């Protein structure tokens, strides 16, 4: 009798939870229309233009997907999305969004406002969504629809992932990491910077940000140098430089080397002098693998020593240039402010970091040593 009542209770409980709960957040896979890549631009009248690439599922299992490009202008990001929803078919969802493009004009205004919806709604993906700044309008890039055989969203994702492996952008900057940097006063961030050349999309380097707004750019080699200065590497970091091995004869050879796949020594140290000057020691020891050398000499031990010296000086020069540009753009990518906050809080409270960052003295040193010349000397 007792058992019967228990069973009845359980059944009733199960049935009521199953049938009476109104909140059903289920969303059938087949009803979803995926926005794979999204772009945001600022229009002339300061509204937001949202461009999406919708993926249309194939009619049968064997056929491929197709894409559609739609765009709408609204007061805010979500506002534009709502106007878009009225235009596109079905239920537009960004759950598998992989890349968000931000037009340069919008980036200059600041990222916080247009990105707000991404951070606020937990159903929006954030950890694997790459953020990219475009030289031209984002809508122009997404509007290209297809690059070769690939759909635009897929192309951009693949391109950015492969460039991350080449240390052009590393570590990957996603909506998640950008949110952290945005809320951190002692740390800034950089984003991949792409543009259109003819009918091709090319990586231009990185876009530097101060606080939340775009403040400058770095070139491709400089971007790789920046990644190395951060002490990171995406796996490969390749440079091609010209060196002169014989002082008597002006024979110059170009040398290509990879410093990304070997061990690096990275030193980053912030110190404050008595009078409140901030000094940053940034030294990098790289081990290079020669991949190509077009000079007429053999790279024997003596030549290698010379190349080491030459490359070290070239790289140091470049590193200093990168740091200079970073300071000019007021982009505290190394997190010097963070170090000050932690170890010199009194100083941190006293100074205006936005102004003071430009006065920080960087002592940058890069040392390159060749450890491998390949199978030939």
């Amino acid at each position: 009798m007792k058992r019967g009542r228990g069973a009845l209770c359980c059944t009733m409980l199960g049935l009521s939870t199953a049938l009476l709960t109104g909140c059903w957040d289920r969303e059938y896979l087949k009803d979803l229309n995926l926005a794979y890549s999204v772009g945001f631009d600022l229009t002339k009248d300061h509204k937001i233009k949202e461009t999406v690439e919708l993926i249309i599922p194939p009619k049968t299992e064997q056929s491929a997907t197709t894409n559609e490009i739609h765009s709408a202008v609204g007061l805010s990001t979500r506002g534009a999305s709502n106007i878009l929803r009225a235009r596109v078919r079905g239920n537009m969802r960004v759950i598998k969004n992989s890349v968000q493009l931000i037009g340069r004009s919008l980036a200059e205004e600041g990222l916080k406002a247009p990105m707000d919806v991404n951070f606020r709604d937990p159903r929006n993906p954030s950890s694997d969504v790459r953020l990219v700044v475009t030289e031209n309008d984002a809508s122009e890039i997404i509007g290209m629809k297809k690059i070769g055989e690939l759909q635009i969203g897929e192309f951009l994702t693949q391109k950015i992932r492969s460039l991350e492996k080449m240390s052009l952008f590393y570590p990957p900057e996603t909506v998640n990491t950008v949110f952290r940097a945005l809320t951190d006063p002692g740390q800034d961030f950089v984003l991949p910077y792409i543009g259109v050349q003819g009918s091709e999309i090319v990586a231009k380097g990185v876009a530097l940000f101060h606080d939340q707004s775009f403040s400058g750019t770095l070139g491709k080699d400089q971007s790789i140098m920046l990644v190395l200065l951060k002490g990171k590497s995406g796996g490969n970091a390749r440079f091609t430089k010209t060196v002169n091995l014989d002082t008597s004869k002006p024979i110059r050879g170009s040398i290509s080397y990879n410093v990304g796949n070997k061990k690096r020594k990275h030193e980053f140290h912030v110190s404050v002098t008595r009078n409140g000057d901030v000094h940053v020691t940034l030294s990098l020891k790289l081990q290079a693998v020669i991949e190509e050398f077009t000079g007429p000499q053999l790279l024997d031990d003596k030549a290698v020593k010379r190349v080491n010296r030459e490359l070290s000086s070239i790289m140091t020069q470049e590193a200093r240039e990168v740091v200079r540009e970073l300071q000019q753009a007021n982009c505290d990518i190394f997190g010097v402010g963070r170090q000050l906050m932690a170890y010199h809080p009194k100083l941190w409270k006293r100074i205006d970091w936005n102004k003071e960052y430009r006065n920080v003295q960087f002592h940058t040193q890069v040392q390159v040593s060749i450890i491998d010349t390949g199978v030939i000397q």
Partner: protein
Amino acid sequence: MTSSEQTIYPSLDGNISYIRDKLCHTDDLKVRHLTYRGQSSALIYLESTVDPTLIERNVIRPLRQGGDEDLSQLFLTLRLETEHKLDQGTQSLLSGNCLFFTKDDMKQFYVLTTPAKYERSITEPENEGIIRGAHNGFIEDLTVNLYQIRQQISSTDLKVHYHNIGSTAPRKVAVMYMNNLADPAVIKKVEGRLKGITIDSVISTGFIQEFMEDQPFSIFPQFLNTERPDHTGAYLLDGHVVIMLEGDPTALIVPVSFFCFYQTPDDYSNRWMIASFVRFIRLLSFITAFQLPAFYIAIVAFHSNILPIQLFFTVQGSLTRVPYPPLVEAMLLELIFELLREAGLRLPSRVGQTIGIVGGLVIGDAIVKAGFVSYTMIIVVALTAISSFLIPSNEMSSAIRILRFPLMICASIFGFIGIAFGLTILFIHLCKLESFGKPYLSPLAPLKIKGFKDAFLRFPIWTIRGRHGEKKHN
């Protein structure tokens, strides 16, 4: 039960007519009138239960030729007992004995053991085939079965205890255990529950099982049944108790843990690495066998964002034409599969191929083309079906097949959270379940790391069993 006190009548005819009445004048009752020591005597037997040549050669011929010698001298090869209660005699007629009444000794009669033996040959059980090892199996004769076990375990500690169960048609039930290894508490429980069974007749071992289970309302079987003597012997030597029913080739083994259902004799004849791998695969199949459809439903209905992008479009592409929710789709296909399975079981093997064609071609392919279900659902159901057949025990396999339906409903209502809740309830139940006082989920709960050696994997035998003859306690 007053009639069972009926003792022998003084007259021969009285005895014969009493037995006739008692057996309802059945036609296979034979009465042979003979003369012994010059006086008329009668041999009574049921011709359907005795061996006719045995009677002719060892009973009637000595009586005709031997003349007046003592009965124990005449029937040298047969077992001879004396009895004076007629009802006991009638009962022994049913089990293949014959009764001998003489006129000069009206205080008792003789019972001669002359049973007919029509037995199936000892063949390998069809649904418990193995690759290597002994290929014999139990048959419907209890003594032959006991012989097979005795042959394997020639130990003085192997004890057999008979019980008779059933009030109208009692059947013999044998309880076996190693006297030095089995837990006395378990033995006491088994004997107690066996004695407590009140039923007219026992049709099969399933009856015993249902009467004796700790938790008859649980979906999980708490008896391991096997038709393999080597399997049974191994469990006996592990200290388990075995129950066998006369006329049934199934041995019931108690107490068992969940992991016993995932072990086969093959595990111990294969080399340990291979056996470990196979066992691991089998335990993996436990997870896929009932969670895969639920998992699929949860993904398709709630969590489609966890699919990799390429898979996302493949699944979406195959789903676009399906008109109803994933739960209905899954239920439909699972039920079709269960129909096919049941039909395949009942059909004679010659028609069995038809089922394969109908199932594979007609339903498998046409149902997708017609847009009833998606290809991905077919893959999921096929994987589930294969996983469920990986389980060596048929009972466990059926239990797990049924389990996936509630889990599918959970998944369709709450997604992954629903699955988590369903599994929590399931594991709470499993942790609480006992088989004759022994925890069902041992060695997982209560945790015994040492027991893992023979539960999840199969470690080398010398590490599982003590080297210096220490016995293994379960």
